């Protein structure tokens, strides 16, 4: 009788052990399914990312080749046709070489900046300065280009903004990128406002334009490498690195950059940098 009782207990115990193993196996299988799902999603997202980069790499190559073609062409003319060229033409060709070389150096600089940002080696040189003169200088710099395109450009600086530690050259680079985009995607008769504001422990800068705007669908991709918004007809030029670098620079200051609609029309880029 005792033996039967013991056997029953053993059978019950065995069943419990089997049940526990089954539950463990089931949960493991569930985890594996989840893992498999994660893996598939990761592969898909990587493929999508790769596809985006594959799409835009030819454009980057195109952008690098363009100034090189001009340099090569100008040099060819200077070597082979010097006797047929006027001194003014020679001067123009030399200027083209200079301009294209600067463009090319700028692009190589951008690629290096992104590479440093991605590897965590990007550094800024902060100095204790006033940001308002930087903003006003940038407005003056772009004033003639805006006038040519019949776009009104104004600069509204908050004189209560305190001086703080930032890298003026790098902030200039951010403003350069944002203002040139605001001009590029604006139309004749439009306007651009550069506004600085003192906010709680930070400096807020807004670049507001009345241009073609950016669709909600494209906004999340704006700060991604090689991405270019499809807000103009034709084929868009550019390395697709400007906003990536701007984001990297602002974040290196401990700040944040984002984009909003500039109601009723256009786009508003905003960046905030801590002043303390």
């Amino acid at each position, binding site marked *: 009788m005792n033996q039967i009782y013991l056997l029953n207990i053993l059978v019950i115990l065995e069943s419990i052990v089997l049940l526990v193993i089954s539950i463990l196996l089931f949960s493991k299988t569930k985890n594996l399914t989840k893992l498999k799902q994660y893996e598939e999603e990761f592969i898909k997202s990587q493929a999508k990312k790769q596809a985006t980069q594959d799409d835009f790499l*030819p*454009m980057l*190559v*195109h952008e690098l*080749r*363009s*100034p*090189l*073609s*001009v340099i*090569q*062409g*100008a040099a*060819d*003319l200077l070597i*082979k*046709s010097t*006797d*047929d*060229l006027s001194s003014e*033409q020679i001067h*123009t*060709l030399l200027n*083209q070489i200079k*301009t*294209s070389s600067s463009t090319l150096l700028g692009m190589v600089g951008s690629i290096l900046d992104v590479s440093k940002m991605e590897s965590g080696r990007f550094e800024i040189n902060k100095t204790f300065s006033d940001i308002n003169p930087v903003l006003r200088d940038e407005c003056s710099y772009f004033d003639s280009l805006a006038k040519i395109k019949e776009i009104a450009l104004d600069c509204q600086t908050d004189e209560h903004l305190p001086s703080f530690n930032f890298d003026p050259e790098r902030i200039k680079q951010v403003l350069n990128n944002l203002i040139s985009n605001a001009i590029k995607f604006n139309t004749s008769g439009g306007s651009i406002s550069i506004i600085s504001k003192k906010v709680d422990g930070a400096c807020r800068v807004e670049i507001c334009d009345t241009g073609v705007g950016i669709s909600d669908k494209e906004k999340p991709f704006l700060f991604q490498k090689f991405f270019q918004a499809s807000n*103009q*007809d*034709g*084929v868009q*030029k550019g390395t697709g690195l400007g906003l990536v670098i701007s984001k990297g620079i602002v974040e290196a200051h401990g700040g944040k950059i984002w984009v909003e609609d500039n109601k009723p029309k256009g786009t508003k880029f905003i960046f905030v940098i801590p002043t303390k």
Partner: protein
Amino acid sequence: MPKKILFVEDDEGFFNIFSVPLKMKGYDVVHVPDGSAAVEKVITEKPDLVLLDIVLPGMSGLDILKELREREETSVVKIIMLTNFGNDDNVAKAMDYGSDDYLMKYNIVPSELPDKIASLLGEDAEFGVKMMES
């Protein structure tokens, strides 16, 4: 009457450089910097040849090429694609649409361009040779 070339190119620097030997050869070179104006300009200017970039504001060079070939009044104009955008897809598409030639900007120097054009227009290539030798 000099032959007319319509140069559709938004890069001012590139146009300035590559138009020099064409003007020296005696061609009448008309500059169109905006893709959206290109088709209309071909219709009104009636050029002998179109030099057509691909990466253009307003309308891409491939779309311009397609439209020019589809329109009766512009269907036979000589067209050379002159671009730095050289992936196989674009070349195949351009040839399929009816481009007469596809030149990569970085593969050609200004002094060689008149020869290419002369040969397509059935002219002699003397000027180009002279420039190469000087």
